[in-house]
């Protein structure tokens, strides 16, 4: 096993592209090291990206925020501007694992681990976040929902690294929220989750909306019909009931050790209602 700590993203991409056996990227290591210790994987090459310039930073730009691939989730919560603009994204990142895990884990790792139950991903999809993907001599920006393609699988080509996550700067009267269902109070994995992002018009009606569900399909899903239900409303009781129905219907869940199909469908609707209500209040809706 080789461990390399490159100083540039180009070197990192080159090492990954040129590796003969299995290669893994190490940022926080909260997935990789656990899987290695459990004996599930034995990578031939580990590329540690934490020493790469800029990857450990959150930058505020004219367009919004750029969150580097090596920024631990705990740091997201300490960034006041980010917390104010995207409270739903931050609360999702701060639900991953435990306090100790949040000191290491990253939202890019959470995205590229490609679990349908990843906590930060529904919030990022709802937020319309984008991923900056760097390969050997290439650089492209894609929607975050285009990264995971199924459990443990991504659309990234060999040698490609997600360098950063981009979030837009906030329009007025906007709010987002994330909720997940776990049987415990913490230290758990989402059985169902929902991220909602809303912008209101001056009358307090929903002008634009994005809603994503987690752990109810092979990937996090963006529920476009949910946006249609929400737009134009003030989240009255009837709208919320329609929203729940649409979200339950959009699920394609499985029965497994964490929950049943019926349970996931039902609770997806409940969480969608509750997350939408919180996002609406954060956007200033009454």
């Amino acid at each position, binding site marked *: 096993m080789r461990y390399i700590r490159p100083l540039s993203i180009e070197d990192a991409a080159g090492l990954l592209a040129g590796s003969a056996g299995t290669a893994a990227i190490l940022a926080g290591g909260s997935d990789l090291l656990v899987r290695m210790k459990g004996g599930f994987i034995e990578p031939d090459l580990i590329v540690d990206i934490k020493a790469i310039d800029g990857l450990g930073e959150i930058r505020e730009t004219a367009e919004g925020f750029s969150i580097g691939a090596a920024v631990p989730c705990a740091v997201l919560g300490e960034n006041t501007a980010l917390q104010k603009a995207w409270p739903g994204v931050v609360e999702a990142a701060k639900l991953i694992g435990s306090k100790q895990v949040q000191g290491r884990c990253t939202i890019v790792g959470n995205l590229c681990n490609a679990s349908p139950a990843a906590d930060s991903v529904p919030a990022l999809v709802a937020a319309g976040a984008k991923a900056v993907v760097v390969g050997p001599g290439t650089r492209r920006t894609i929607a975050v929902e285009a990264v995971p393609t199924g459990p443990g699988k991504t659309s990234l080509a060999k040698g490609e690294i997600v360098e950063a996550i981009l979030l837009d700067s906030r329009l007025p009267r906007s709010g987002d929220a994330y909720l997940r269902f776990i049987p415990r*109070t913490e230290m758990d994995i989402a059985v169902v989750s929902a991220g909602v992002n809303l912008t209101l018009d001056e009358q307090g009606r929903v002008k634009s909306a994005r809603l994503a569900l987690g752990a109810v399909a092979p990937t996090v899903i963006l529920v476009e019909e949910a946006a249609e239900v929400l737009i134009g409303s003030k989240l009255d009781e009837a709208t919320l009931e329609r929203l729940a129905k649409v979200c339950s219907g959009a699920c394609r869940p499985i029965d497994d050790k964490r929950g049943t199909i*019926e349970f996931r469908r*039902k609770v997806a609707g409940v969480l969608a209602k509750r997350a939408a209500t919180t996002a609406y209040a954060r956007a200033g809706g009454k």
Partner: protein
Amino acid sequence: MNFDPRYSGRNFTSVGTRPIRPDGVDKVTGRARYGADFNMAGQLVGRVLRSPHAHATIRKIDTSKAEKLAGVKAVITAADLPDLTDGDAAMYDILDNCMARKKALYDGHAVAAVAAVDARTARQALKLIEVDYEVLPHVTDVDEAMKHSAPLINDAIFTEGLEQKPVKPSNVTKRTQYGHGDIHEGFGQADFVVERSFKTEQTHQGYIEPHACVANVSSDGTADLWVCTQGHFVYRQHCAQLLGMEASKLRVTSSEIGGGFGGKTHVWAEPVALALSRKAGRPVKLVMTRDEVFRASGPTSATSIDVRIGARKDGTITAAEATLRYSCGPYAGTWAEIGAMTAFACYKLENVRTVGYEVLVNRPKTAAYRAPSAPMAAFAVESAVDELAKEIGMDPVEFRIRNAAQEGTRSSYGPVYGPIGIGPTLEAVKNHPHMKAPLGKNQGRGMACGFWFNFGGQTCTDLNIGMDGSVSLAVGTVDVGGSRASLSLVAAEELGIPYEQIKAVVADTSSLGYNDMTDGSRGTFSSSMATISAARNAIKVLRERAAQMWDIPVDDVVWEKGHAIAKGEKYDNLAALSLKEIAAASGKTGGPIAGHSELVADGAGVSFATHICDIEVDPETGSTRVLRYTVVQDAGKAVHPTYVEGQYQGGAAQGIGWALNEEYIYGKDGRLQNPGFLDYRIPVCSDLPMIDTQILEIPNPNHPYGVRGVGETSIVPPLAAIANAVSNAAGVRMTHIPMSPPRILAAIEAERGG
């Protein structure tokens, strides 16, 4: 030995106080040595190869490639642990469970093991062992396993306890029955009858420390074993018997223990580690991973229970009946029998009958888990009792008080009770402010009672007084919950000296006579009896030495408050001699001063508890939150009240996890789906409220201080108390444990739909 164990009322000086435990500082600073913290020069790493199949014949094991791998020092299979059990069926089962002989009987069953110079080599070696399996049909569900069509796990098993010896083999190893009176007549007198069926899923003790040991077999045939266990003397006997050694040649030292709860009363890895060390000629450390602990140690039974109880309008129970089916894993057990004995033990019943069925399944061998078998039986019975009270229109506490067992009641399992605590715990609950606190929307309150036998058993203790007057107390019961502190208090009480002057240790198997293990809530009960006896023997010696120092008859010397006192007017001018003074002179008065004790602690007083619980249920998701929890339990006499409270709280915490989320989940392939703490959900701190406790003290007549065991009873009522609370909050009777959110939501939806 003419030790009188009977209770005599007295005022205590040390007993009942709350000093810091002697093992506390080392534990909080990380100095304490647990099972995996012991190391020896030249030690090898042991690893076990486990069956991926729930049920399979082992046709052949080829270890040749593994043996050739550089760094591998020994590879063993069942052939290296020959059958020396000489017709002892229970020991044969232990042997077969340590290393599968002909068939792998569950996912995780050990089939081979290696010892290598490092963990990586050991892991590689396991991959090189080739096992040729013939996969057989399996069964993991207790009800499915009882069907005639179920795959047979052991074709030599014919159900015992039936009127006629069966002609066909079965997965039911035994039927047992308890009770008295005529239940048909009793049900005939009933105005109300409740009949329900219940299920509970299999749970694990969830101890944080995995099994770990270091074995060192010398070329002269003697051996040392350093191990995390609840009973090092029992481990010595079992290991010696399985390996063909004389017990005294095997010295077993127990480490500090990171939880056992009954799960560290059985050998699994230890005979394997010894066999590896014997073959390799070097020390071997074997530490189980968490995955191995879940798959291949000893969880408790999964159960299926039917209950029927009838009562008159006035609230008197006229008849009670239960049929209990408990899974045993692939080897015979007595788990349903214990359930059948405990089910109705809280009540005074004229007509009662319980029937237990022991059922084999392709799951790991069931082991004890804190009051083993009682929580599931209590869940079924106390749920039905609650429902019956509701049907009659009586308060559930009043209904239980009306039917509670008393001194002189013939218990449902046979014996007649002495003074017991069920009535007092119910009265205390009735008057507890918790019962009167207001409840909010979607909140419910439940209460339930629980019983446990408690155990005494063989115990041996030494008390040695140093020349500086400090006292070492060597006990043979492993300290699982603060017993070194409690036993030091008892020694201080008897000798009349400060607690700080005593140091208690758990001695190894070569330093003391045989001790039964720390189970049955016996640690403090039995070892305190032996400590009292040893201290009294030491006091006899101290009096003799004082008499010698004064040159007066020993009958004129009494022991009071840590001093020898010459009684009678003629000795008025003699100053009392302190323990320290007598000890300092001991070299000239006959040598070291010690007290020894060996006894069978009979008369462990039965124990009762009543719990109250408030739960909030989210009716849209089935999510639950424990809002408030109160434990009321009889301790006989609380030697160290803080650690008694700790036992009450710990039992309640484990019960809360079991009731709400913990369960073994098997796939259709017979493999365990959740062998880790991520998906086997024990409660985390934020899942639990502060658990309030109330200690009652109804003295046990068979112990000098009135002590009863306290460790286990506290896990008996929670399943039922929480089920009653959830049922009240959700408006639907919950009959399947754990009451996980999907089960609660499905029950609420079914109720709404129906």
